[in-house]
């Protein structure tokens, strides 16, 4: 076991053609700053077998002429000085179980996460698991980073737990951006819908070509996947896909609404970006929306995406507040003049049949009919059991509700009814307080009378 102080020099080992390591570096440094800590220590684990890389190795690298190792190195980042971290990992014969439990708890608290270093010349960043930033920012904006999976990390007899969304960069051999966007999405979907999400990038690319091989480009080395392949791969894995095509910028509210709804529910949104360079044909790039930041007026002011060529949870600024006009490294450093989300794929459990578009349209009509009351609204997707629990808690927590006894009755009735596994909820707010919920069945594609209306 090697524990060293975090220094800029650490990243020398990760340098390659891409700049992803810089994204990870700034994420880790930013995280320490965000939680007001200065010291970071790095534990380097040699000869680590990373499952994703091992399968990719078997499918591709093992048969390269070059001598490429099947083993990786794993770099773990902890908040605290080297001495402190060393002490927490140290053990001797007189130690008690309590000391062990204390060290695991303390290590979990200090753990930022890990980065796997692959032995590849051009794509060193393998599976990367880094804690999400806290939800409240220093200037009281709120980050919503609800797209994640549960990850257990085993390190020298200790189990460390992080709920976050795994990340890795494309290797330009078995994967390009689309494969990695699928891999990222599957991590969160597997957790959300309780399905296995164990495919490595090479297996995903392979499945994409099996699902749709009428394409002239090679499987390996892979140059990318078509939209058709993305959709059919997700279907092959048991998910339904609702595609969105934004021909122009007129659907700003719809796009904002669907990002808000699905991110809050924990669904990764696969985005097809149109990148434009002057006097050149457009390029298309796939990333995954993993979160958004809201100001105190509840407006989306920034997005977070897993971009396999920039980094995890990388920030996307919205030029002039326009959700269709993205700005980040692609426009600031890599020569593109514009970056626009043109296609969006929402991978979803097949029994959620009622689309966001329909709910959103009905919600707009509802707001229009109630416009004299100045309600604000939110569209939410819930597992019905979670919904019941959250509403019950809300009623117990808030004693001064507008509808008083009558509202309580609507809640009690709802708790005793049977509902489909997933439900849509149109929530109305008055003066930033919940006012009413219209609860809709998600298993039909036709909007019908609400299953119930909760009055707060």
């Amino acid at each position: 076991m090697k524990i060293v102080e975090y220094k800029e020099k650490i990243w020398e080992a990760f340098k390659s053609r891409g700049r992803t390591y810089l994204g990870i570096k700034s994420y880790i440094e930013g995280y320490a700053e965000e939680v007001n800590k200065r010291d970071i220590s790095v534990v380097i684990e040699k000869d680590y077998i990373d499952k994703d890389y091992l399968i990719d190795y078997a499918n591709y690298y093992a048969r390269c002429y070059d001598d490429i190792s099947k083993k990786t190195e794993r770099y773990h980042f902890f908040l605290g000085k080297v001495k402190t971290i060393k002490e927490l990992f140290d053990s001797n014969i007189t130690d008690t179980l309590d000391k062990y439990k204390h060290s695991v708890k303390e290590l979990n608290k200090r753990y930022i996460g890990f980065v796997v270093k692959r032995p590849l010349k051009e794509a060193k960043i393998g599976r990367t698991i880094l804690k999400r930033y806290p939800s409240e920012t220093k200037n009281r904006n709120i980050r919503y980073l609800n797209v994640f999976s549960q990850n257990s990390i085993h390190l020298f007899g200790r189990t460390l737990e992080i709920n976050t969304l795994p990340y890795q960069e494309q290797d330009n051999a078995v994967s390009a951006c689309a494969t990695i966007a699928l891999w990222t999405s599957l991590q969160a979907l597997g957790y959300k819908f309780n399905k296995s999400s164990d495919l490595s990038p090479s297996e995903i690319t392979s499945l994409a070509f099996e699902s749709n091989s009428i394409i002239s480009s090679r499987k390996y080395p892979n140059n990318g996947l078509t939209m058709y392949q993305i959709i059919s791969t997700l279907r092959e894995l048991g998910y339904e896909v609702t595609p969105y095509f934004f021909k122009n910028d007129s659907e700003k509210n719809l796009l904002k609404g669907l990002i808000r709804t699905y991110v809050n529910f924990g669904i990764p949104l696969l985005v097809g970006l149109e990148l434009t360079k002057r006097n050149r044909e457009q390029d298309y790039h796939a990333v995954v929306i993993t979160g958004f930041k809201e100001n105190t007026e509840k407006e989306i002011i920034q997005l977070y995406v897993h971009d396999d060529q920039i980094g995890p949870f990388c920030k996307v600024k919205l030029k002039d507040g326009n959700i269709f006009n993205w700005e980040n490294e692609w426009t600031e450093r890599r020569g593109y003049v514009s970056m626009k989300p043109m296609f969006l794929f929402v991978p979803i459990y097949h029994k959620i049949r009622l689309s966001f578009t329909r709910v959103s349209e009905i919600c707009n009509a509802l707001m229009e009919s109630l416009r004299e009351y100045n309600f604000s609204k939110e569209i939410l997707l819930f597992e019905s059991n979670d919904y019941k629990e959250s509403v019950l808690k809300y009623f117990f927590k808030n004693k001064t509700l507008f509808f008083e006894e009558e509202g309580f009755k609507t809640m009690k009735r709802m708790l005793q009814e049977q509902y489909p596994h997933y439900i849509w909820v149109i929530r109305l707010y008055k003066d930033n307080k919940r006012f009413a919920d219209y609860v809709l069945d998600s298993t039909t594609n036709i909007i019908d009378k609400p299953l119930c209306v909760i009055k707060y």
Partner: protein
Amino acid sequence: MKRKASKKQEIKKLGKKLKTAEFIFTDPKYTQKAEQKEKEINNIPDEYLIKSFTI
């Protein structure tokens, strides 16, 4: 007493309003519009489906 009565009346009025607004969910004027919107936006034209994400 008077305030209590007026609050009760307000609850009744708004409760009724929320109930009345439920017609939106079944009125073909709105549901058909929603379906139309879905047709427009939830379809990727064939020529785009074969485009590759290559960066």
